[in-house]
């Protein structure tokens, strides 16, 4: 057996649907090779074995939404050389961040008979609001091949090759016809980061923002077209309010549209 020490990997979960860490198990063709390249120190969804930290690479899924989460993420950071957040919950707060613009007490009462049993924060926030993050991988869920690229880069000490341009560029590169121009279908592609493989426009559907705001996005300009195409102010505001509702560019634009709606 090789004696060279393999990098120790940990996978952590906060508030989330488990879909992003499942992306790792969904790498059916590459899983065993990846598992062979690292020492899995902590990965609850896959193994009951546990190796104590420190860890060379930590992948963090999920958002911070309880008082306990805040303490836990600080502990994870202390134990991790490289901390990479994966998915919309970890990078923006996730769909559960819709509570940030609503009354959390009201939310608890709506779902639970005994609100006193529930310990939760008023907000759901991205990991980077609490600790230093070395790389953020977007997506709801993340793209498994982008995840493989980020892991590969971290294992080899290089910068991951993850584009930050918009979905529009991805559509043009792959020759997908623009659904907004050709079919007047509302699309968040112009303001959303590429990476999913332009799957929605390929299905005759407008992008709905799984990968969060692209670099230098200009959502106000897009909203103008959405309204012109017949969306109501409420519909346009809601369009930005999904899995990345708490990402700055989307949050600010949805709030502006809501205010215009009165």
């Amino acid at each position, binding site marked *: 057996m090789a004696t060279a020490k393999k990098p120790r990997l940990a996978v952590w*979960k*906060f*508030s*989330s*649907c*488990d*879909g*992003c860490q*499942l*992306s790792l*198990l*969904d790498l*059916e*063709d590459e*899983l*065993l090779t990846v*598992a062979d390249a690292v020492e*899995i120190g902590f990965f*609850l*969804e*896959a*193994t*009951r*074995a546990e190796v104590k930290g420190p860890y060379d690479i930590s992948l963090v899924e999920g958002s911070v*939404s*309880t008082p306990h*989460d805040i303490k836990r993420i600080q502990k994870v950071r202390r134990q991790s050389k490289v901390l990479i957040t994966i998915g919309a919950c970890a990078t923006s707060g*996730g*769909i*559960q961040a*819709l*509570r940030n613009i*609503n009354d*959390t007490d*009201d*939310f*608890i009462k*709506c*779902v*639970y*008979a*005994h609100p006193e*049993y*529930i310990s*939760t924060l008023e907000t*759901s926030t991205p990991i980077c609001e609490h600790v230093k993050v070395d790389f953020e991988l977007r997506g*709801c*869920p993340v793209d498994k091949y982008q995840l493989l690229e980020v892991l590969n880069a971290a294992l080899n000490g290089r910068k991951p090759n993850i584009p930050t341009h918009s979905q529009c560029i991805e559509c043009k590169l792959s020759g997908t016809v623009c659904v907004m121009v050709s079919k007047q279908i509302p699309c968040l592609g112009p303001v959303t980061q590429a990476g*999913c493989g332009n*799957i*929605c426009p*390929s*299905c*005759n*559907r407008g992008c*709905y923002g*799984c990968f969060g705001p692209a670099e230098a996005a200009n959502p106000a300009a897009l909203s103008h077209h959405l309204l012109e195409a017949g969306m109501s102010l409420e*519909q346009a505001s*809601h369009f930005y309010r*999904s899995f990345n509702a708490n990402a700055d560019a989307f949050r600010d634009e949805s709030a502006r549209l809501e205010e215009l709606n009165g």
Partner: protein
Amino acid sequence: MAKTTSRIIKVDELARVEGEGALKLRISQGEIKDLQFRIHEPPRFFEALLRGRIYADAPDITSRICGICPVAYIMGSSQAMEDALGVRVTGPLRDLRRLVYCAEWIESHVLHVFLLHAPDFLGYQDAILISKDHPELVATALRLKKLGNRILEVIGGRAIHPVNLKVGGVHKIPSKAEVQSLAEELKWAIETSEGLVKAVSAFDFPDYSYDYNCVAMRHSDEYAICEGRLVSSKGLDIDIASFEEHFSEEHVSHSNALHGVADTGKPYLVGPIARYNLNFEQLSPLAQATAKDCGLPRMIDNPFMSIAVRMVEVLYTCQEALRLVENYEEPDAACVEITPRAGEGFGCTEAPRGICYHHYKLDDQGRITFAKIMPPTSQNQKQIERDLWGVVERYMDLSDDDLKWRCEQAIRNYDPCISCATHFLKLTVDRD
């Protein structure tokens, strides 16, 4: 004072499940004093955040309840909305839904059987360690799992959180050529699954049984997946709209997941064993014969056999998927016509882990004013606690470490999806 031996067994973070949970167990003088199965997955308030959204947003938002079984949420919410809006999805579109749901069963079941549960029966910490000794077994399982994901991609546009499914149908009609390209791998999968049912049925099942009140959907023409009536082993036979008259949720202090209870106040069982016990005769002749040949009883009361039942269901869904693929004709329209209106609707489907119930109310613009979702794991949670009680009584003499592992194995019988149930596990065994 009597001599006391006190044992506290804790599983703080349950592994090989989806989401976060724990178990706390206190045993005094050979008796269980306290047993709590906790879900500390943080609450995400889906039912609250749906209010005010347009009906069409429900499938995409609710799919994010669970990355393992998003199709269950997409289907349940879509059908509930269709019920509220007075439309029905039939013909080839309905067949496409059943096909994509079969794919989710294949992907989810194979993930659970081989990557999450088999290590307990084979004595390994995880599947990666199994692959060191039995590389061909893990490679075969991964190929089968990949097929489930590939069908999801062809029909749904993406494996996790598919994008091509919507209220009323699909965004884009998958071409006949794309769908039929799945046939060859499905033929391999049927043959392979037959062998895997045999392999899994030969596992050593711990000795424990319970007289379950099984609850599942039943459909007159097929092994129910997407639709049907709700039936139970105690003779219940109801329309899904009456679900809340017969089942409710309890909120207990030790868990962020609501516990499902039947109107008798007792636990009930949903999932593979419930479906198998209630609807066995509707499985394909090959699935029935394979189960019999492997020595699986007609009525299963040992929850540890759930792993074998999952594999029987994988065999069935591979055959069913092949049938749907071979008979597929492209529908004339991608989606039925919908006019927003006020209404109330119900949706219930068989998620891989059991029935998943949705209930919504809409205003006259089609906005959601009320949402209620009962995922399978919250319905099973009370039964899981009951099983744990029995398993601990039966295996009290095991060492703390072995008892802890046995308890974990018992919980994994349910393939608990803790992310879903929050609205789920660490084990603490405390022996005095």
